[in-house]
Structures are given as C-alpha cells and as structure tokens.
C-alpha cells in the first residue's frame, strides 16, 4: 500500500506512510459518524413499538441514552483529534519536501532543456551552422 501511494502520488516514503495512516483514521472517522444515527434509529424503533402497542414503555431510560451519547461523543472527539493530526499537519511536511525535491529535480535537468534546442526540433540556427554531414 505504502509503495503504491509513493509511486502513484510521487511521495516520500514517510509521506506515503503518513497518508496510509490518515486514510485509515478517516475511514474510522466516518464510521464514528454512524454511531449517533444508530442511536436515533434505535430510538425511533423504540417509540414505534410503544406507539403500535407492542411495548408499554421505552427500552432505555433517559439516563441510559445520555450515558451512551456521552460515550459516543467522546469517541468521535478522540478519533477526530487523531484524524486531524494525521491529515492536516502531515500534509505540510510532505508538500515542503515535494517542493524542495522538485526544485532539486529541476536543477538536475540539462541546461539545454527549454532553451536553445528542443529534442524534437533542434534550433535551426544550431542545425545550419554546425558541421554538416553532407
């Protein structure tokens, strides 16, 4: 996975590793967003059971709902905190490294690139004045 990310997005090994981590934390983050929906669905079903006469009272007390809500919120906070760190802060490290690497790559290109000659069409002034093969 790391190798794939490194090649696909031209990243450093650390960058690919960080991206891999942040992908997994983002998956977890979105899964954690499902938890409040699950509580709401459970509550709706519970009220419907009472409304349709299948049950006399709700399954959980208000305190049980409050308790479970607090646990879910704490979990969401922790997952978001880690996900934020792994995504937003690492990206600036990687982009700085990419900029420096790009500058170095540019420096290593031949001086003639984009200047006097082009590999597909040498400059006529050079072509005509150089030693002629015929």
């Amino acid at each position, binding site marked *: 996975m790391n190798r794939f990310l490194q090649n696909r997005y031209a990243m450093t090994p650390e960058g690919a590793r960080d991206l891999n981590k942040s992908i997994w934390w983002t998956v977890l*983050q979105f899964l*954690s*967003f499902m938890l*409040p*929906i699950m*509580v*709401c669905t459970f*509550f*709706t079903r519970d*009220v*419907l059971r*009472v*409304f*349709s*006469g299948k049950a*006399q009272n*709700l399954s959980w007390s*208000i305190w049980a*709902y*409050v308790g479970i*809500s607090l646990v*879910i*919120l704490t979990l*969401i*906070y922790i997952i*978001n*905190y880690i996900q*934020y*760190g792994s995504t*937003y*802060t690492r990206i*600036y*490290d990687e*982009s*700085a490294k990419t*900029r*420096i690497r790009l*500058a*170095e790559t*540019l*420096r290593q*290109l031949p*001086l003639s690139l984009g*200047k*006097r*000659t*082009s590999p*597909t*069409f*040498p*400059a*006529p*002034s050079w072509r*005509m*004045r150089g030693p002629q093969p015929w």
Partner: protein
Amino acid sequence: MTQQAKGSPKKAKQPALLKRFVPFMGEKRFFLFLSLLLSSLHALLGMLPFLMVWLLVRQLLQTLGQVQLEGLTKYAWLAFAAQVLAILCYFAALLFSHLAGFRVEVALQKKGMERIINKPLGFFDTNLSGRMRKIINDSAGSTHSFLAHQLPDMAATVITPLSVLLLIALVDWRLGIALLIPILMGFITMGGMMTTAGKAFQDQYLNALEAMSSESVEYVRGIPVVKTFGQSVFSFKRFYNLILNYKEMVYAYTITWRHPMSAYTMIMQAGGLFLVVASLLTWEGSDSAGILLSNFILFLMLAPLFSTTMMKSMYLYQNKMIAGQVLDRMEGLLDYPDMSRGKQTQIDDTSLAFQYVTFTYPGSDTPAVSSVSFRINPGETIALVGASGSGKTTLARLAARFWDVDSGQVLVGGVNVKNIAKETLMDNVSFVFQTTRLMKMSLRDNITFGTTNATEEAIQRAVDLSQSREIIYSLPQGLDTIIGSRGTYLSGGEQQRIALARSILKDAPIVLLDEATAFADPENEHLIRKALKALSQGKTTLMIAHRLNSVVDADQILVMDKGRIVEKGSHEQLLQKQGMYADMWAEYQTTIDWKVSSSKKEVSA
C-alpha cells in the same frame, strides 16, 4: 520622500464585495441579481419536501392500520415537484453565476494588463514578474471561484436558516431548541476563525504563497548559475527558507485548530443525540408518541440541512474574505503612483542634460545618485564608468523617465522630461539594456516593433548594420521565422543584435546603452560592438560600460562613485590624473593580460 511613499494615501473603507464586482460586469450586471433571485427560490422550494414528508409521516401515524394511499400520494408528488423545481432553479442560478464569474475574471485580467501597460517603466523594476502574474491570476481565479460557486449559496445561507426557524416556531419549539443548541455551540467553537486573527493569518498565508511563487520563478531563472557552480537548492537559501517558513507558519496555525476543529466536528455530529434526549424530556406517554415521532423525524431531517447551510455560510465568509483580499492585492499592485503626463511634443535639439539630479529608490534611505550634473551635446558620446551600484544605470533610466527625480531635472532637448509627452520622449530615445527580451513573433515584427511604416529597404539596412544578416540566413524562413516556436531560439548575443536592429531602424536621435555587451561571448561581443557603433553614429549617446576598452573613444568619460561624479575627462586626461579611472584601467589591463597569459599557458600545455 520617495514618490511611492508620497503616493500611498490611507485606504478608504471598501464597499461591499459584490458592489466591487459590478463595474466589471458591464451591461450584464443583472446576471448577479438573477443568480441571487433564482438561488433564493431554490432555497425556498428546497424546504417544501421536508414539510411534505413531515405531513406524510404525521398522517401515516394518525391513520395507522387504515392507510389510505390517495391522501398520501399528493404529499409525495408535491415533494417531488418542489424538489425538481428547486434543482432547476439551482441549475439556472449556477448558470448565471458562472456567466457572471467568467465575465468578471476576464474583465479583471484585461483591466490588470491595461493598467500595467500604462505604468511607468520603473514599476517593472520594483515588481517581480512572478509576483505580478500571481496577483493578477489569483485575483481573477479567486473572484471567479467566489462568484461562480459561492454566489448561489449566498441566498441559501440566509433563507434556509430563516425557514427552519419558522418551522421550529410552528411545529415544536422544544425540539427546535435541541436542534439549535449544538449548532450554536459549533459556531461558538469556530468563532475564532471569523476574528481578526483569522484574517491576519489569511493575509500572512497569501504573503507567504506570493513570496514563494516569486522566488520559485527566480530560482528557475537562476538554475544555470546554480548548476554551473555545482550548488543545490539548499544553497538557494532564500527559496529554501521561504518553503520552510511557509510550512512552519501553516503547520503552527493548523495545530492551534486541532482541538476546536475536533470539538466542532463532534458537536455537529451530535444533533441527533440532542434530539433524542429532548424528545425523551418531552415524552408524555404512549398517547403523544405519534406526534413526537413525526416531529422527531422532521427535526432529524432538518438538523443536517441547517448545519450544512451554516457550514456553507462559514466557507462563504472565508471565500469572501479571500476574494476581497486578492482584489485588494490587485488594486494595491496597480496603486503604484502614475507619473504626471507631459504635453510637449516638440523639443529644441537632441541634447541630454542632468542638472543637480538626486534620486532615491523607493524604500531606500540612501540616494542612488546625488546632485549629478552633466550635459551631452547633440552628436556627442559620454561614457559612465564606475563600480557596481555607483549609480550609472540609474542615471540612464532617469533619462528615459523610469522614475521622476527627487530634485534637480533631466532635460531632453532643453525640455524637462516631465513636460515631454510620453510618445515624443520614446520617439527621441532608444535604449539597449544588458539583457534583451524578444517577443514570440516573427523576426521582422520584432525588428519593426515600435516603428510604423518601415520600408523593406530600411529593415534590410538595419539587419546589415546590426550584424544580424548571418542570423537571418541561418533561419528556415529568414525574417519571417517566429522566435520561440518549434525550437527556434537565439543566443543572448544574437538576441542583442536583433534588438540593436530594432533600435537602428527606430533611428532615435538619443541613444542610451547600458552595458550592452555584458553577457555576450567574444564572437558576439565583437559583432555587437560594430552594431553599437552603427547605432550611435552621429547620435547623442550615453554609454555605460564595464569593459573599459569600449569607452576609450568617448568624447568624455564620467567616473562615478557612490552616486556622485568623482572624475571627468577624456581617456588620456583621466589616465594622466592618476585617480580612480587610472586604477580601474590598470586593473582592467591586468585582467586582460591574465586572460591572454592563461590562454597561452593552455595552448602550450
């Protein structure tokens, strides 16, 4: 005080952002209002499906066990129709906002370019091309993005929350409060983003990006030097440091948002949980379960709509801030003081004179030239020599009115340059700089650039006198070859000779030569020297040269040091004085001897 300092009055309060775009819209300004109107309709229609679903659920629960589809389908159809209409309105709003965005983008770029072209020449010395490109492109890009994508959301950010509040009041205020609490908490948490600190960071962020962009252009330009001396990007310290500074600044700012952002995301996901707890608090037993459930479902649907709209308003605010700032930057860039326009179209003769001229560059405390006076009579050649930074180039540029002098005056043909019409000044003055830039057009167009109605004979003469014939012969389509296309590039010396052909064809009576052979190889230097001789023949010439052998024939040589003329006279007179010029000449001779002896050693080896 410099003219830039003089020309920076305190900024007046800017009008609302949308109003600032209106002048760029021309006759199509109604696109903006049409887009706002359609997006308002979209927001209103977008509320109807929620209302219909609520009514449907309510009726369904009331008629549990005896469901009548006829009564329920009308709600479904109404919800469907409202949603289709809302989508159509949104598409139309987007269409008009995009048309407005493109119009403003093009108008901004055109206006920027028009104003840049009319700026004094000194403007281009103080503003790096990379910075100008970035500011103009960013202004156009950001304003387009803001208008095209955020404008339709603008109406929704007002209408949707108001409609939700109305529903809250009508349906169940207790559940409404439960819906609003997390949203309010979220906004309090993120409130810091809207403060001046957030705005200051945006400013810092744009500055850092701009500096990095300018420096990257300089870096690419300087690559040949970096390579030649075997250096790396780490030796290009400024660029390297700017990359690191940018990273550290954004990193530090991002870290400060780690807790608030996590809290905000948590609260925004907690809407449903708040509603569950509020519903339980209002639970009055199984009899009220149907109404409670239908209201709960309505508010559960509204919660994400409300928070998404509020989130959009936050992004809208942020993008509005960015669009406003880039617009400020463009206006700031173009806020360079314009020079007074001279009206005189006639000059007495072709002399050039400096009278007690003092000039300080913008932002500098030390004058570049101090109380300099000399005169070049028609047809005379005067050479300026001196160390780098002694003020030679500044004097040549003041003659062409790159800037206005702080005190004293520059006279062309006996008339102060400030009073001469720009066209007249440019018709009478030709300049050849150290580096020349040819435009991507045919050689013929490059040579005739600035000269109207040039005859073929005159062009051919200019080609011959500038020693450019050989260049023309070597190109497949001769004078009609387009420079810069299909790998057709000329060396620095060749470009200089073509630029000289342009000046020869222009035939201006006053010629300013600023180290025209500085970057030429020996072969080109010889040819350029011949071309320069042809160009300055019989003309009033101000010549700046670092290779002293090219100034020995000048009528007078002025030696400059720290912005002042310290010696003057002919070559022989100055040598006899045994002063600064004699020292410079001796050093120059040593350099030549060293070169010759080095070559001899290489040959013998």
